[in-house]
């Protein structure tokens, strides 16, 4: 069997695993809303979906020769997987453990949303373009998705706090808001630093005022404001949650605007080319 046949077969396997993962993850998201007996199993279903999605990502990695970091579709896989990991294992983080029981129910919503968003873009597996072939990019993207997941968690908690849902108040919830913002801010800072270093190596320019980086600076300053508001003025509860939510569009903009906006050098949608 030739290399291209193996690649073609793996591509089919990857697609099959992806769709299986998507269906299972969607089922898990729905299961969190069903009666207690089913909801009790939702985390296990989510874990199964996460494993399928990981298998799909690994198969794609073998086909393309790089981790899933290239283009919106691949990044939607990386992001959805990171979110699913928090849904499954988040309660092992001591400060997340104290959150009300319906946390996973709401946070899991981001998974089908993210995967669905990725489906609007090309799924053709391509190798990495030359400017992305660096361990520095891998580190940059790793910190990017860690930061995104931490800050998305914080934003979800903030959303539940401002909507005054039952149980979403008190010191345990505040702890998650503040620590999520703090840890997310630190991860975001490292992401910016690593990206800035790479920009210098690639363009001899430490920072480029293009759309993604402008969003990133605004979001970074936004989360800095959140931390200042808490540390210096003691903001907690709904007041702090509102500030977190004000920054949420900047976070979403930082991580997804490049999908649409082709003039940024963070844009990696390869148009289909016919031979």
């Amino acid at each position, binding site marked *: 069997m030739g290399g291209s046949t193996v690649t073609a077969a793996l591509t089919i396997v990857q697609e099959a695993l992806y769709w299986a993962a998507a269906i299972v993850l969607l089922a898990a998201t729905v299961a969190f809303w069903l009666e207690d007996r089913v909801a009790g199993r939702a985390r296990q279903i989510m874990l199964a979906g996460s494993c399928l999605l990981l298998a799909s990502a690994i198969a794609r990695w073998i086909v393309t020769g790089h981790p899933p970091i290239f283009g919106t579709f691949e990044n939607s896989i990386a992001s959805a997987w990171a979110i699913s990991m928090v849904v499954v294992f988040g309660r092992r983080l001591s400060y997340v453990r104290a959150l009300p029981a319906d946390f996973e129910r709401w946070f899991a919503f981001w998974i089908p949303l993210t995967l669905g968003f990725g489906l609007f873009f090309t799924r053709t597996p391509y190798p990495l373009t030359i400017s992305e072939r660096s361990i520095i990019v891998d580190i940059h993207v790793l910190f990017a998705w860690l930061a995104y997941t931490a800050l998305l968690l914080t934003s979800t908690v903030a959303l539940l706090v401002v909507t005054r849902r039952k149980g979403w108040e008190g010191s345990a919830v505040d702890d998650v808001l503040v620590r999520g913002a703090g840890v997310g801010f630190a991860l975001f800072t490292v992401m910016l630093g690593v990206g800035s270093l790479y920009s210098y*190596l690639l363009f001899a320019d430490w920072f480029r005022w293009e759309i993604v980086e402008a969003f990133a600076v605004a979001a970074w300053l936004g989360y800095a404001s959140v931390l200042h508001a808490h540390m210096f003025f003691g903001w907690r509860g709904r007041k702090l949650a509102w500030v977190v939510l004000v920054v949420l569009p900047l976070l979403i903009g930082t991580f997804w605007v490049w999908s649409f906006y082709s003039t940024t050098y963070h844009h990696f949608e390869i148009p289909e080319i016919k031979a």
Partner: protein
Amino acid sequence: MKRLLERALRLLGSWRLATLLVVAWAALVVVWIIPFEFYGLPGAQLKAIVYREFFFRALYAALAVSTIACMALRVTPVLRRMSRRPSEQAVPKLPSDARVAMGAYESGRAEAVLASMGFRDQVRGAGWVWGVRNRWSPVGTLLLHAAVLVLMTAGLVAVFGAPQFSGEAVVAPGERFDSKADQWASIDTTGAQPPELAFTMRQVNASFYRDILLFTDLEAVLDDESGRPRSMTLASPWVRWPDGLVAIKDFGYSADVVVSTATTTSPVRTYKLKVFPSEITDTFDVKVGLKDYRIYLRVYGDYVDKSGTPGNRSFNLVNPRIVAQAKEVLSSGTEVDRGSEVLIAPGEPIEVPGGRIVIEQLQRHAVLRITRVPAAPWILLAVVMASVGAWIRLVTPRQEATISSTDGAEVSLAVLDDTYRRARDREDELVRRWGGQQ
């Protein structure tokens, strides 16, 4: 006077002003820069706004003053906090809602429980044990804020320091480049002297994924002044100076051209052509007999794009073919077509009246970008300080834990966090390890 200065320092270093400035900076980027990005304003103009516009400069100046004042006011308390330890004589103050756990206080047990959670640096008193972990974490605050000042210093270096240099050199394999010999293809500088640099290009490699315009590799190997080979890729330049890089940014074709007429054959002459991406057309001028010709060239791709246009989105690197057209250049400067476009491979002729032009070989050359950015070391320092500072302050904050005996068979427990105030999750863990809560 002293009191006035102190009041001014307190005002400038106030949390309120600092927070206001951070929010103002974010707001300026959101309402000014991001809309212009969507509008499509070129990067150079955006850069000019961010670095030269009055509002931004005033903001940076205010931020610098505020940061310096904040640090001046808080360096000492932060340093004190790092070395803060309770006296053995005084029981550490616990919060009023400290956790209570069952089990009579035993000094050895308390020490062991705290140590098992990382609170190894301990102070023991009568009926209590205090421990600290991540003791030096507050220095992260200083690092993070000092990074802002270092970044602003970098800005001052960029504006008032030695000018930045950026130049391009186009060098083919076997060719020697010497900056003193004025071999620059272009120089974009504000008066900076070109750096001293000499090397010989050894090889240039490039590759595309299936010949479509998805660049997958671009590498150059050169021998530096001492004959040492230096390899570089697009993502991994040669760091030639602490503040400067030699980077490969592009490649092109060097065409070895021979012109022949019925009676003569010219020596080989090399023309360096810009040919990538493949829709780019470049030219070279030759003389055939007594006539001047301008040859228009572009690389022909083997794929068609979605719109059906041939060659626009592919680049045949392995087996290159060229779309060529010869135009005679009259003495008036007017160009006249001398034949239609022809598709040729290296070695095949372009026929013109009175002779033929043959591109004998196409060799890849490197387009190198050579830069000196005097502010670069400062910016690198700021990036490292900010990343390390944010990490140690926010991910590994200083925490102080106390286990104190109360009356009878109970102990009080508390974990105070330097960043997030109360570490209730750590308290839960402490209670669990102690053996249960009342």
